[in-house]
C-alpha cells in the first residue's frame, strides 16, 4: 500500500511537471466524459468514428481525415523535439557527477593529513603545560602575599595617619580610615601586635571623638559643621539618643526666652522673632541631622528617626509650654479695652508664626495649643468687654442721676430734660455697644489667620459675642433695673423716681425696638450661624418688658408713697375734733395737686397719653353731685332701726355692689393716664384709711369735705376713669361722716366758693 501510494505520488509529481493533471482529468470528467472528445481521456475512437460516419458527409469526412493527419504529424514532430532536448540534459548531468567523484577523493586525502597534524599539536601542548605548572602557583602565592603586606602596612601606618588627620582636623578622612581598619583589627585582636595597633587607634579615635564632641558642644560652628560633626559621631557609633539629647540641651540654651515687652504687639513680636524663629531653626537643623537622614547608613540607625522625632516633640512641647505660659500671662495683663486691634494683631502674629512650626513639625500639638490660647484670649476679651459695657452702663446711670439731682437750669419743671437724658443715655449705650462690637469684630476679620478656625466661625460668634456679650449685657440692663425696684423699697426711694421712670422707658424702648436692632446688627456683623441654642429675641424682649413693668410699678409705688405720706401726716397730726371752721383748702391738698401735676408732666415727657373713658366737658361739676347735699341728707340723718341694719351705709354698699373691686397697688399700663391713676389710687386709699382711724368734729368733717372737693376739681383730669376718683373721694367723705361726732355737712355752694377762692 505504502509503496503503491508513494509510486503514485512520484507519478503524480511527474505528471504535474508535464502538465498532466490527474485531478483535472477527474474534474473535467463531467464535460469531457464525452467519448467523442478527441482530447478527452475517455476518448473512444470507435464511438468517435461511428459518430463521424453517421453525422458527416463524405466531404466532411475527407476534410476531417486530412485535418487529423495534419494534427498527428505536428504532434509527432513536437514529441521528437522534446525527446531530444531531454537527452541533452541527461548527458550533461552525468558528466557533472563524474567530475564531483574525482574532487571528493582528493579532499579525503587532505583531511587525513590534517588529523595527523592536530594529534601532534595536542601532544606538544600537553607537554608544555606540564612543564609550566609549578611556576604559575608560585606567582599566585607571591601576589597574595603582596596584597596582605600592603594591608598590613596600612594597618601599621594607621595610628600615624590618624594622628596626622587629627592634627589637620581632617576628621572625615580619619573616620573613614578607621572604619576600614576596624573590622580587621577587631578580627585579629588576639594577636598582640594587632592589639597594640587597635589600642592605639582606639586612643586616637577617642581623642577624635572627644574633639568632635567638644566642637559639637561649643556650638559656635555653623549648622553645616554641626551636621558634619553629628554625622561623624554617628559613624563612630556614638549613641544617637545621647547626641539628640545633647543637641537639644544645647538648643534649649540657645532659644532665648522672651522678656516682658512694653506693649503686647511688641511683646509678641519679640517673642516671635526670638523664640519662634530660633525654635524653627532648631527644629529644621535637628530634622536635618537626625530625622531626615538618608537611610544609607547601617542598620543601627534604623530606629533613630522615630526616637529623634519623639525627643524633638517633647523638647518643642516643653519649650512651647514655657513660652505659652509667658504669652498667656502677658495677654492676661492686657486689661485695657481701649484698642482691641493691637491685641488682635498680636494674636494674629502669634498664631501665624506658630503655623511655621506646624509646617516643620506636622504632628506637633504646639499650633493647636496656640490656637487654644488665642481662643482663650478672645473669650477673655469678650468677658472684659462685657464688664466694660456694664461699668459704662452704670457710669452713665450715675451721670443721669447727677443730671437729675442737679438744680434745673432755666427753672423748667421737674424732669425738664428727661427726654434728652433718655435719648442721650440710650444713644450712648448703643454707641458703646457698636464700638464694642466693632472691636470684637476684629477677631473675625478676613485677614486674621485664626478667623477661619471653626471656633471663630461658629462658637465665638454665637456663644461668645451674641450670647455672652450682647445678650448678657441686655440681661444685665434688665437685671440692674430690677434691682432698683428691690433694693429701694425698704429704704423708701433712695433712687430718684425720675430715674425709675427713665429706666422704665428705656427698658420699654429696648423691648419694642432696641433689642431686636442690636441682635440683628450682631447677627449681621458676625454672620451668626446658630449651631447651639441661643436666647431668642422674644425672650429678651419679654425680660425687658418685665423690667419696664416692674420699674413703672415701682415708680407708681414710690410716687404714690410720697403723696400718701403727705396725706397721712396731715390727717394724723391734726386734732380734728377741735378744729376751726374751714376757710381754706388745706395747703397739703394744694401740694398734693401740685405734685400730681408735676408727676403728670414728668410722665408725659416719656410716656404717651393713654386712653381715658370719655367724660363730659363739665365733669367736675357733674361728678360733684355724687355726694351732693341731697344724698348726704339721707346719709347722715339718724335712722337707726335695728331691723334694717345700716341704712346709712346702704348707698355706699349698693355703690360697691355695682362697682368693680379696686386693686390699689396693681400693675399699671405703659401710659401716662394709667400711671397717674395708679398714683392717685394709692394716695386716696391712704387718705381713706387714715380718716377711718380718726374721730372728727363738725368742722373736721367740713374741712375734709372742702379738701375732697378740691381734689375732685383737679384730680379727675389725670385718671383714666374719673368715677374712680369720685368713688374714692366719696368713700373718704362718707367715712369721715361716720367718724364724726356732729355730722353737719357744709353747704355745697359754700364748699365751691371756698375751693374756687383757693
Amino acid at each position, binding site marked *: 500500500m505504502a509503496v503503491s501510494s508513494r509510486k503514485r505520488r512520484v507519478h503524480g509529481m511527474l505528471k504535474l511537471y508535464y502538465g498532466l493533471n490527474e485531478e483535472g482529468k477527474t474534474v473535467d470528467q463531467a464535460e469531457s466524459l464525452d467519448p467523442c472528445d478527441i482530447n478527452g481521456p475517455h476518448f473512444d475512437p470507435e464511438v468517435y468514428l461511428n459518430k463521424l460516419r453517421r453525422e458527416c458527409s463524405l466531404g466532411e469526412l475527407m476534410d476531417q481525415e486530412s485535418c487529423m493527419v495534419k494534427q498527428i504529424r505536428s504532434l509527432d514532430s513536437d514529441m521528437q523535439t522534446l525527446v531530444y532536448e531531454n537527452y541533452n540534459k541527461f548527458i550533461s548531468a552525468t558528466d557533472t557527477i563524474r567530475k564531483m567523484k574525482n574532487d571528493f577523493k582528493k579532499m579525503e586525502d587532505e583531511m587525513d593529513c590534517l588529523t595527523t597534524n592536530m594529534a601532534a599539536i595536542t601532544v606538544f601542548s600537553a607537554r608544555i603545560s606540564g612543564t609550566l605548572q609549578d611556576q604559575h602557583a608560585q606567582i599566585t602565592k607571591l601576589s597574595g602575599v603582596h596584597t596582605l603586606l600592603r594591608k598590613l602596612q596600612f594597618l601599621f601606618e594607621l595610628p600615624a595617619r590618624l594622628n596626622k588627620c587629627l592634627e589637620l582636623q581632617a576628621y572625615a578622612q580619619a573616620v573613614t580610615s578607621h572604619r576600614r581598619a576596624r573590622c580587621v583589627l577587631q578580627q585579629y585582636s588576639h594577636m598582640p601586635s594587632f592589639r597594640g595597633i587597635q589600642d592605639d587607634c582606639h586612643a586616637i579615635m577617642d581623642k577624635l571623638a572627644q574633639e568632635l564632641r567638644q566642637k559639637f558642644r561649643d556650638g559656635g560652628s555653623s549648622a553645616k559643621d554641626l551636621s558634619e560633626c553629628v554625622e561623624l559621631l554617628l559613624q563612630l557609633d556614638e549613641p544617637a539618643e545621647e547626641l539628640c539629647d545633647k543637641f537639644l540641651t544645647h538648643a534649649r540654651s540657645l532659644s532665648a526666652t522672651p522678656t516682658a515687652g512694653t506693649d503686647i504687639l511688641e511683646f509678641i513680636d519679640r517673642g516671635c522673632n526670638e523664640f519662634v524663629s530660633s525654635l524653627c531653626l532648631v527644629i529644621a537643623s535637628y530634622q536635618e541631622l537626625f530625622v531626615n537622614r538618608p537611610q544609607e547608613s547601617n542598620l543601627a540607625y534604623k530606629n533613630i528617626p522615630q526616637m529623634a522625632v519623639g525627643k524633638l516633640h517633647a523638647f518643642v512641647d516643653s519649650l512651647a509650654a514655657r513660652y505659652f505660659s509667658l504669652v498667656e500671662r502677658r495677654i492676661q495683663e492686657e486689661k485695657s479695652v481701649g484698642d482691641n486691634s493691637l491685641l488682635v494683631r498680636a494674636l494674629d502674629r502669634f498664631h501665624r508664626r506658630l503655623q511655621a512650626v506646624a509646617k516643620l513639625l506636622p504632628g506637633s500639638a504646639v499650633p493647636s495649643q496656640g490656637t487654644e490660647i488665642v481662643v482663650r484670649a478672645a473669650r477673655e476679651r469678650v468677658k472684659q468687654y462685657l464688664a466694660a459695657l456694664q461699668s459704662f452702663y452704670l457710669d452713665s446711670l450715675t451721670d443721669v442721676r447727677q443730671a437729675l439731682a442737679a438744680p434745673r437750669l432755666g427753672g423748667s419743671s421737674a424732669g425738664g430734660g428727661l427726654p434728652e437724658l433718655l435719648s442721650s443715655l440710650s444713644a450712648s449705650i448703643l454707641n458703646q455697644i457698636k464700638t464694642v462690637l466693632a472691636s470684637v469684630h476684629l477677631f473675625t476679620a478676613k485677614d486674621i489667620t485664626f478667623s477661619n478656625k471653626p471656633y471663630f466661625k461658629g462658637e465665638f460668634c454665637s456663644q461668645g459675642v451674641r450670647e455672652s456679650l450682647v445678650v448678657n449685657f441686655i440681661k444685665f440692663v434688665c437685671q440692674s433695673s430690677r434691682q432698683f425696684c428691690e433694693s429701694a*423699697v*425698704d*429704704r*423708701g426711694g433712695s433712687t430718684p423716681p425720675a430715674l425709675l421712670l427713665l429706666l422704665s422707658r428705656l427698658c420699654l424702648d429696648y423691648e419694642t425696638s432696641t433689642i431686636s436692632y442690636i441682635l440683628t446688627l450682631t447677627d449681621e456683623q458676625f454672620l451668626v450661624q446658630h449651631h447651639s441654642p441661643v436666647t431668642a429675641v422674644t425672650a429678651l424682649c419679654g425680660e425687658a418688658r418685665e423690667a419696664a413693668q416692674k420699674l413703672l410699678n415701682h415708680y407708681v409705688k414710690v410716687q404714690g*408713697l410720697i403723696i400718701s405720706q403727705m396725706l397721712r401726716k396731715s390727717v394724723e397730726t391734726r386734732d380734728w*375734733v*377741735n378744729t376751726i371752721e374751714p376757710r381754706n383748702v388745706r395747703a397739703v391738698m394744694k401740694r398734693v395737686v401740685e405734685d400730681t401735676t408735676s408727676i403728670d408732666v414728668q410722665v408725659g415727657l416719656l410716656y404717651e397719653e393713654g386712653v381715658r373713658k370719655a367724660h363730659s366737658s363739665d365733669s367736675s361739676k357733674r361728678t360733684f353731685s355724687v355726694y351732693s347735699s341731697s344724698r348726704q341728707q339721707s346719709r347722715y340723718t*339718724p335712722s*337707726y332701726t*335695728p*331691723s334694717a*341694719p*345700716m341704712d346709712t*351705709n346702704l348707698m355706699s*354698699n349698693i355703690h*360697691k*355692689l355695682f362697682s368693680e*373691686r379696686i*386693686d*390699689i*397697688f*396693681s400693675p399699671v399700663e405703659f401710659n401716662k393716664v394709667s400711671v397717674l391713676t395708679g398714683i392717685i389710687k394709692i394716695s386716696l*386709699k391712704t387718705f381713706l*384709711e387714715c380718716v*377711718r382711724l380718726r*374721730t372728727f*368734729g363738725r368742722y373736721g368733717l367740713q374741712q375734709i369735705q372742702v379738701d375732697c372737693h378740691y381734689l375732685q376739681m383737679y384730680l379727675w383730669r389725670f385718671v383714666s376713669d374719673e368715677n374712680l376718683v369720685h368713688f374714692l373721694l366719696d368713700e373718704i367723705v362718707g367715712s369721715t361722716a*361716720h*367718724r*364724726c*361726732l356732729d355730722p353737719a355737712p357744709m353747704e355745697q355752694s359754700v364748699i365751691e366758693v371756698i375751693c374756687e377762692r383757693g
Partner: protein
Amino acid sequence: MEDDAPVIYGLEFQARALTSQTAESDAIRFLVGTQSLKFDNQIHIIDFDDENNIISKSVLQHEAGEIWHISASPADKAVLTTCYNITSESRVVTSSAVWRMPPEWESGSHESPDDPHNSHNPQSLDLLCHLDNSAHGNASCVLWEPMGDGKRVISLADNHALLWDLTESSTQATISSSATLEGKGQLKFTSGKWSPHHNCTQLATANDTAIRGWDLRTMKQIYCIENAHGQLVRDLDFNPNKQYYLASCGDDCKVKFWDVRNISEPVKTLEEHSHWVWSVRYNHSHDQLVLTGSSDSRVILSNMVSISSEPFGHLVDDDDLSDGEDNHNDEKTKEPLQDSIISMYEEHEDSVYAIEWSSADPWLFASLSYDGRLVINRVPRALKYRILL
C-alpha cells in the same frame, strides 16, 4: 370634697375688733366689738354651729364707747378686755377696761340673729376694773398672758407698755412693771403680742416701721428690728410652735417672717396683698397655715410649709422603702407641699381689719371688715386632709 360655702354675718355698725373666745374650746365662738360714735356700742357674741352651718348671736351692750380692740381672757370665758374711745368735752381718749359678761348670756337661749326682742333689750357688760392709763396716754391694745391664769395683762398705751396684775377676781388692777419707749418724736405702739414661749417672759411690740422685743422680767428691750417694713407695721404674731419665729405685716403690703435670732433679713416675705395688711395670724395648731387680712378687702390663707414646725418635704420611712409598689402610688399623691397661697377669700367689700382663728376648731376662722361683715370660713378640705393624713 366640696368646701362649705362661707357663712356671712352682718353687723349693723362698723367694726374693727374681733377675737375668738380663747378660753372656750368646745363651741366655735367669736366676739366682735362695734364702732359707732352715735349709738351705744355692742359686743356681738357669735356662735357658729359647724354641723348645721348656722350662726347664732347674742348682743351685749358696751356703753363705754366705741371699741378699737377686744381680747378674751384665756382662763375665764366670761372675762374680756376692750380698748375703747371715750369722747368727752371735745376730747377723744382711748382707755381700756376688763369686763365680765353677765351670767345669763350663755344660759339665755341663743336667739336667731334677727329676733327683734333680743336686740331690743340687750344686756350690758359688767365692769370689773379699768386699766387706768390716764397717765400714760391712749391705749392701743390689751394682751392677756397666753395660756395664763387670767391674772396678768399687758396694755400698750402710746409709748408705754404696762404689765398689770389683776387681783381679787380681776376687780383690781395694779401696774406691776412698765417699760417706756424712748426716742425722738412722738413714738406710739401700734400693736403688740405676748410671746407664748420662754415661759411667757417676752413681748413683741410694733411702732412705726420697727419691731421690738422686750423681756418682761427686766422690762428691757432685747431686740429691735429697725425698718422691719417699708412703712408702718400693723400687726404681729408669734409662731405657736417655733419660739423664735415671728410674723409681721404692714403698710408696704407685705407679710414678713422673722427669726428673731437673726434680724438682719426676714426669713420669708409674702407680697400677695394689693394694699396694707392689717392683721396676720398663725393657726394655733398647724403653724404652716397663716392668715392675713388686708384693706384690699381680701383675706389670704397661705401655706408656709418651709418655715413651719412641720417636717418639710417628704420623709421616707424605712417601712416605706421595704414595700415599693404601694408606696409609689402614695408618693405621687403625696408630693411635699410647697409654700403657696391656699386661697384668697373675697367675700368682703370693705377693708378687712381683723381676722381670727377659732379657738375650738383649728380649721375655721373669722374675718371682719369695716362695714360690719363677719365671714366665717374654713380651710379647704383637701388641704386639711393632706395635713392630717
